[in-house]
């Protein structure tokens, strides 16, 4: 396993632990959740294979599901994001393309690009997560409130963390 592979492996556990130990208990106003673990999928190298990405997404989501007692729910949403990620990256390629070996991070491509990249994917993730959990659209507006509040919370945390640790992902 290459050096970056080992780092990703450690990061996987770091994200999972932070999610289940800390963020699971941190729900603002009973509506805003922080599903930081999705950042692991978002911030992987740009050139990663979609198949690998989906399998990793499935394992990550499944691990989170074990702790949330929501068998399959997080796995579903995460696999969806993993599948769409590379297509979305291709769609929003900046002029001149991505640098080789580039990561999909804020430090590599700038804040504006990063927001355009991450917000729709995080929104989709939360959309499926909350509507499947509610098993339908009975609680439509309340679910939408949760989705938007969580979107703001999760995105802010992901962006802030990248400002705090700008070097981490270049390894």
């Amino acid at each position, binding site marked *: 396993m290459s050096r970056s592979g080992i780092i990703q492996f450690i990061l996987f556990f770091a994200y999972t*632990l932070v999610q*289940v*130990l*800390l963020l*699971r*208990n941190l*729900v603002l106003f*009973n*509506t805003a*959740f922080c599903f930081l673990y999705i950042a692991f999928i978002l911030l992987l190298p740009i050139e990663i294979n*979609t*198949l690998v990405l*989906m*399998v990793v997404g*499935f394992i990550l*989501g*499944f691990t989170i*599901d*074990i*702790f*949330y*007692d*929501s*068998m*399959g*729910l997080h*796995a*579903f949403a995460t*696999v*969806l994001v993993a*599948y769409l990620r590379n297509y979305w990256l291709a769609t929003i390629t900046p002029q001149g393309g991505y640098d080789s070996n580039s990561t999909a991070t804020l430090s590599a491509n700038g804040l504006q690009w990063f927001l355009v990249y991450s917000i729709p994917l995080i929104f989709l993730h939360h959309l499926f997560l*909350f509507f*499947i*959990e*509610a*098993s339908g659209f009975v*609680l439509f507006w*309340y679910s939408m409130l949760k989705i938007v509040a969580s979107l703001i919370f999760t995105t802010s945390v992901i962006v802030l963390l990248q400002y705090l640790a700008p070097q981490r992902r270049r390894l």
Partner: protein
Amino acid sequence: MERLINFIYEYRAFFTFLVLELACAWLIIENNQFQSTKYFNSSNRVAASILGFSQSTREYFSLRTINEDLARENAELRTLLERSRQKALLGDAAVIDSARLNQYEFISAKVVGNSTSLYKNFITINKGMLDGVSPGMAAISNQKAVGKVKSVSDHYAVLISLLNVDEQVSSVIKRTNHFGSVRWDGLDMRYSNLQFIPRHAVPAVGDSVVTSGYNAIFPEGILVGVIQEVNLNEEAMFWDIRIELAQDFGELAFVDIIKSKLKNERESLEQITIGEVK
């Protein structure tokens, strides 16, 4: 054939996506079926001990409340004990059948994981199959309803909380004896709804809602909540009743699992009867 294989290979990402999502969908549906012994949930030993670590840190901040609750429960239990001792001394002959007298057994457990803000909330506790917990048992805390056991592993169990949109508890309004079922609407962890109370009943704000004991999971008379708001629509068949839950799920630290010894006997009797009628 070759073209088919080429086709699948060309769209392999999409097909993998489809397979994975179908697997997830199957897991979600499977998990919604009630009660089972499963290992891929927080009753899993590794998961439960990690959650336990997180919960014990949380608990540190609410020690005072937990202490007060335990002290109050102790006092209540002591009163009950004294009363039953007096009864025994006086030779009250109303209850003779010892099986009925010892119908319920209590297993005390500590909460290691709990959530209140999802639509389907679960509680993980540190007692499992080896301690005598099995799926379908009721959980109470301080004589107030908490939920029922969904799945167990050797040392841990997952409870389906009253704060779960899939959970229904058969309950009665204590004053009028009308029964319905309590079901959470997924909104506020302090309130729940009492459904299926017929039009002719007269529920009032402040009435206690207790478990009915009809489904043999909860014993009769465990407090669920207090009626907070009643509403009757013009053409509705049932009342809209909002109850304030007696249990504060945010502060839950200990629960008692109730083992009903007569449950099997009762259920098999009911099964036989239903079979005969058909």
